[in-house]
């Protein structure tokens, strides 16, 4: 069924996606009729200055927010009619999100952080622990399973976040400025992992960044956003 779905067309489609914010009496177009498609196995960089609507776009794709107009489709199906429960299922199973400030739960160990999305999916504890351990080991954190985020370096924290994003084996990873809080060495380390994932496992990736140099070096396709519109 998976193969069948994949052969049918793009993984993600944005069709005239518009997002409006109201600030007092002013209406801000965070996104203005943005349309594009993401195919299985692509590594796309979404480029733009701050305020260009990159993060808003990623939130819409990840099912965290709903567009004001237009439609986001995942595997040909619109996210629009989904109720909050089904949308939570979409976030849990179809996408993995990675954030600039990691967004790990500070009181939980690395292992528990990675296992949490699987808990929401009703996986038993042993299975969760085993998969979380394997993921962390693969990302080079085998020795830091029981450390809490404050005891980890920025690069390590971001790798824990990546492991968490991969926990439920999502179809696409959505990374929102994952290197924004890291120095350049750590940034390259993280982006290299992304590239390996993409090349070796065919992991579909969407990377939001404002750094053209990083994007050029690692991503294979680029979408430039300027004031909420795709700049050709």
């Amino acid at each position: 069924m998976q193969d069948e779905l994949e052969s049918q067309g793009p993984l993600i489609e944005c069709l005239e996606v518009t997002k409006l914010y109201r600030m007092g009496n002013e209406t801000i177009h965070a996104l203005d009729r943005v349309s594009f498609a993401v195919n299985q196995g692509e590594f796309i960089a979404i480029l733009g200055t701050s305020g260009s609507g990159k993060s808003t776009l990623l939130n819409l794709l990840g099912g965290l927010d709903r567009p004001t107009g237009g439609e986001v489709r995942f595997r040909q199906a619109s996210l629009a009619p989904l109720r909050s429960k089904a949308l939570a299922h979409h976030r849990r199973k179809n996408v993995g999100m990675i954030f600039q400030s990691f967004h790990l739960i500070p009181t939980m160990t690395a292992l528990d952080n990675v296992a949490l999305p699987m808990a929401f999916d009703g996986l038993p504890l042993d299975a969760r622990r085993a998969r979380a351990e394997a993921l962390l080991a693969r990302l080079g954190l085998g020795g830091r399973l029981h450390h809490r985020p404050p005891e980890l370096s920025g690069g390590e924290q971001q790798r824990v976040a990546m492991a968490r994003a991969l926990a439920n084996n999502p179809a696409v990873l959505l990374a929102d400025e994952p290197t924004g809080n890291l120095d350049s060495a750590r940034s390259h380390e993280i982006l290299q992992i992304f590239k390996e994932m993409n090349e070796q496992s065919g992991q579909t990736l969407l990377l939001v960044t404002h750094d053209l140099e990083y994007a050029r070096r690692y991503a294979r396709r680029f979408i430039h956003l300027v004031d909420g519109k795709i700049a050709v």
Partner: protein
Amino acid sequence: MDPFRVRPGVLAFRGWRRAPPTAINKVPFEDRPATALDSYPYPFKAMNFRDILRLGLQNMQRRALRFFLTTFGVTIGVGMLVIMMSVGVGIQRNTVGRLESTDLFTSLTVFSDVFSRRGGPIFGPSRRSPMPPAGDAQKERPALDDAVLAQMSALAGVRYVYPQRNFTAQLKRDKTSFETMITILPAPIVREPVYAQSLEAGAFFASDAEDSIVLSEFVAQRLGLPAGAAAVGQTVSLLTLASMPGLSPEGLSFQQKETIVRVAGLFSPRRSGVSAGLSGLGFSGVIVSSGLADRVGGFQLSLNSLFGMLSGKKNYGLATVRVHTPRDLSAVRKEIEKLGFTTFAISDALGRLKIVLVILDSILGIIGSIALVVSLLGIVNTMLMSILERTREIGIMKAIGAEDWDIQKIFFLEAGLIGFIGGWAGVGLGWTGSRLVNWIVNRLIVQQGGDPTQVLATPWWLVLGAMVFSIVVSLLAGIYPARRAARIDPVIALRHD
């Protein structure tokens, strides 16, 4: 395929609950065949209870002091409620309960209405049989005689019936003699357990044929009889005024008669408590069987018996009816009142007392509940604080796939845990507290020379009820915070950096 392809006019709005109404939203939804995502595998796998419990406990550990203080608040609230209710139950048990456990509620006093057309019997009329109007006075009143008593004892639920009779006589032993009131009890009646309970020594007369007498300890002492079992078997003389049958030309004639009787037993009215009054034991210090009374011709000093003698019809003033269970009382009572008698039951008087106790219980319950309500406000406050602190965390959990309901369950469970732990501790506190009060009060009572009693009573239903109540109410307190937590918008929550 061109990845940048645009399908103009494909705009969606169906199911967008939060989408503000804008012009582009008004474009109708494209007709499109159902696809995989529309038919999600319902029901979704949900988070299991153990994981929710684990998360809840982790959160409580993290803010241990705050949760401890909130829980302690609930403990005090529940403890207060338990102690207040225990006071209520204790009072109830020491008053109405104590009376109810006796035979009071199976007893009915029946009045012969012959002389009570206006004034009513000395206890006052029963509310159920109001005094008949004055015009009714001519109507024939039934006499309370043996035939009617037999009729009453045949009613369903009636255990036994006996007339309340007594007469005055002189008791004499050696040089001591004094006048006293003597109660007449039929021999079959004294086989009831209440009479055996009141015995100090010896036994009641076994049949009406025996010339034996039962004395209270006090009367025995007055007669100079030895104390305890040694008095049994001694003899005393009974001096009575016997009336000659019928009327002589001079009027009623009397004759003094001396009968030697054996002391069969000694009783103490205190031993059977309140039942003594209703069983005829509290009334006088001397009891004889009805057979003996008839033989000595005991003259009952009452208008009833005087008129009875004059008319040749026997009419008892009062009779006691005993029923099997308190539930039989009202039916039997109705039947007897149909026969034209006035009745009195002690429950008439206790009804008022019961109402007073219900009011007292309610007041105590309200005082206890106030403490609980205050502690519940504490729960709501703690939960709201917790949500404020964990807004970002809730956003994260939603972003990685938690459902609104998952979040709601986590917070709901935390509130429930506070209620559960606080409830148990509170019940413990209340139980210990009422034990302590009992202990202190009983020490004082014993010092004053009284019998120890349970001043505060904590029955099992109160313990269980307080437990369930505290959990239910703390879950109620958790509803608002949990819903509020679930409604947090992850986009806004994650923007807090």
